[in-house]
């Protein structure tokens, strides 16, 4: 199976100097897969790094439109059936590709996520390993497995972290790729995985495919912590508005959200949910349009998606 490895980069020259050689080595070892750097309009000399130091990689120079849009353009431009998306802060290990692509070849699979470890080799702070979720008080609460014993086998997961995942290009296109509702960042990969499960496809976790992830080093460099928290919270609301179709859970969600502002006075010290709700209202019409689309395409119910993603038999 031929695949295109796509590294999405925005002003990450230093990170790219580590991740690109690793991706090239992994691609060469697994059978000469193409490596593309999708540069999202960087103003540093990332492009020069690719052209002069790694001419074997292809440069896709884009106008700056954010992570999701860059991924969508790069996947659309790929010429292979499978694509591997990598963040510029993800360093692929040399033997990572074959198990990732083997898992992708299994029936009904849309995407496969890597095993992420921190720069020190630990799992404690790694995000995106064997992901699962649970609807609670109006939001989908995401869980990431950190117990090494539970990360030894290929298994289903809710979504593959966009920082290191393989997927089928045709299914990606059918899903419409990463949704720009979540611009500029976060939750687009959760949304994609959730929608794939909703269409009856599967998302897997492959522990034999290891990648080192310097979590937050891309976004953390470019945005303030408060801004990141608020964007993430707003996108969690938008995700629920777009995807939660189950009538009972939907009613619960709306009831919970109506109490958030009052809870801020009653309890205090909570995540910025109320501000996130206000921020999400600005994208309500767009969320409603996506919800209509989702209603048409969905074949699996919300509770069933979470059950299947946990690998439980129903």
């Amino acid at each position, binding site marked *: 199976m031929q695949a295109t490895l796509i590294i999405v980069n925005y002003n990450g020259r230093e990170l790219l100097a580590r991740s690109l050689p690793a991706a090239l080595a992994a691609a060469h070892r697994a059978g000469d897969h193409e490596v593309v750097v999708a540069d999202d309009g960087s103003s540093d000399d990332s492009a020069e790094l690719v052209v002069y130091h790694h001419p074997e990689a292809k440069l896709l120079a884009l106008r700056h439109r954010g992570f999701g849009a860059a991924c969508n353009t790069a996947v659309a431009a790929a010429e292979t059936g499978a694509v591997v998306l990598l963040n510029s802060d993800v360093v692929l290990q040399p033997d990572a590709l074959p198990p990732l692509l083997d898992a992708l070849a299994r029936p009904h699979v849309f995407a496969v996520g890597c095993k992420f470890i921190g720069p020190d080799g630990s799992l404690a702070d790694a995000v995106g390993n064997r992901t699962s979720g649970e609807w609670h008080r109006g939001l989908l609460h995401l869980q990431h497995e950190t117990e090494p014993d539970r990360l030894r086998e290929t298994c289903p997961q809710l979504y593959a972290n966009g920082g290191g995942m393989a997927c089928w290009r045709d299914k990606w296109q059918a899903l419409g790729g990463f949704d720009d509702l979540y611009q500029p960042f976060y939750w687009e990969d959760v949304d994609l995985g959730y929608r794939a499960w909703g269409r009856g496809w599967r998302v897997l976790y492959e522990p034999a495919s290891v990648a080192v992830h310097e979590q937050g080093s891309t976004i953390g460099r470019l945005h303030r912590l408060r801004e990141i928290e608020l964007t993430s919270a707003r996108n969690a609301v938008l995700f629920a*508005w777009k995807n939660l*179709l189950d*009538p009972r859970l*939907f009613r619960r969600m*709306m*009831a919970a*959200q*109506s*109490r*958030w*502002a*009052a809870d*801020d*006075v*009653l*309890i*205090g*010290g909570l995540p910025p949910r*109320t501000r996130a*709700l*206000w921020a999400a*209202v600005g994208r*309500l*019409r767009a*969320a*409603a*349009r996506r*919800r*209509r*689309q989702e*209603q*048409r395409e*969905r*074949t*699996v*119910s919300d509770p*069933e998606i979470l059950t299947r993603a946990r690998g439980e038999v129903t």
Partner: protein
Amino acid sequence: MSGKWQEARLAREGHAQGSCPTGTVLLLTFARRGEENAIRVALQLLASEFPGAQVVALATPVSLPVLRALGVEDSIIVEPGRSGRQVLKDASRRRPRAAAIVYSDGAGAHLKLELAALFSGAPRTVRCVAGEWWDVIGRLRLLWMVAGKSLLSLGCLVAGMKVSGIAWCCLRVAQVAAGGARARRP
């Protein structure tokens, strides 16, 4: 209101160090992650202002180990299946001399803890924002604060319901337009 000013006032009222060696002080905190230092500061403050008084905390099963680790031996447990009324009854039965509220981010919220302080029957409430300020207020002032924040909370609830109502209508219409909530459900 500064700490020194309060010290003088406490001395006048006979609550300064050494004057009341016994009794119970109710500690009210959510004991969230990262608030350990704030609780530690509050406990030091209570030890100096109410020497010899036993500190009793209102604790959940989650916050209990945190409070124990900080040296709070006695707790009234707030857990599912136990009504708030029962918990407050237990608290007021101890006849606390004061209730101490540990605020994590200014004194703008925490209405729940202020309500607990009010209904515990403690004649005084120590408000403590770790590293910033602390003061002692009487029941009347606490009542005013609780009334104001209750109104604010009610206003927020109404505003939240309005926003959620608009969102609900918009999203529900979108869903129904695409074939209804039960369309294509397995």
